[in-house]
């Protein structure tokens, strides 16, 4: 089941990440804004793709504003945004 509505999770506080997700038609389109983009941008994108794949999301547009979140936080926020976007 794909994303059926726009949803978000997380905050813009330090050590958190704000994830916004909405329905898409052209695969995964990911826009990332991060204070550690240069060093960790690729690994954040890979982690987000991994979580989306785990939850069977093939089409979605995401905007991610990272405030230095650890992997477990990014994972949790993406999972929540996906579940909300699926209307669960």
């Amino acid at each position, binding site marked *: 089941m794909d994303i059926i509505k726009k949803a978000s*999770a997380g905050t813009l*506080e330090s050590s958190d990440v704000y994830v916004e997700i909405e329905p898409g038609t052209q695969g995964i389109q990911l826009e990332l804004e991060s204070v550690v983009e240069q060093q960790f941008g690729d690994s954040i994108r890979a982690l987000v793709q991994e979580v989306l794949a785990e939850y069977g999301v093939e089409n979605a547009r995401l905007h991610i504003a990272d405030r230095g979140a650890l992997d*477990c*936080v990014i994972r*949790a926020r993406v999972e*929540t945004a996906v*579940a909300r976007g699926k209307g669960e």
Partner: protein
Amino acid sequence: MRRSMLFIPGNTPNLLINGAYLGADALIFDLEDAVSPDEKDSARNLVRNTMKYMDLRRCEVIVRINSIDTDYWKKDLDAIMPQKPHLIMLPKSGCAQDILTADAYMTEVEQRLGWEKNTVRLMPLIETALGVENAFAIASASPRVAAIFLGAEDLTADLRCKRTKGGNEIDYARGRMVVAARAANVDVYDTPFTDVNDDEGIRVDAEYAKSLGFTGKASISPRHVGVINEVFSPSQKDIDYAYEVMEAIRLAHEQGRGAIALHGKMIDAPIVARAQQTIAMAEEMGVGKAADHE
């Protein structure tokens, strides 16, 4: 060893990921009061992932789920139990049936996971007048119960009295909780001291709780953890005396003597039991006899 338990709001990454470095023996990841209803799902995912991927060092993990009169508690257990927390804290525990209801569902989840029953233990949070009156029934409702915990903020609201620093209004509840817990052979934890800036107040409050028989105390502020640990740790004098008691027992057995005296006082079973508890705690703290340090 669980002297201090620090509450960590379940939807705050900064505190969750740093909690293990704040000195508490146990962390209480809170999915209940610290989380607004529209963020319950988010907090549940965050706590689950933190437990799964973070190194929480030597901290025990307790998760306060939502009470059984909400739609959240089963979802909380479904998400959290696979991460094997040491304890589940059940808020608003009012009677033995509340414990049996939670226990039955926890057993179901454990069966699903292929685990033995009671792998994850329960700490009922007693915070109503009904709960205080039923404290022994709650503490002895199931072998899954490892400890009971007094929540004075909700209790005083239920009692329709003002919560004060002196705590006279919760004296009865404190005494009753300690007796109930000890009669049921489980641990018992005192309510947090809520003035985070009163460093002397927390010491007085913790010392009083210890004098009543509490095992330890919860905190809502990392600032209080050090004092709580200190107050609920055995002193060097206690530790030395405990070793002396055990040595006196060993010598008496060796010499075939029944009655044992130390410093002119008879050593009986409760004194030996207390000495054993003190030594076990000292060993966990990495503290030996004073003579060992010389």
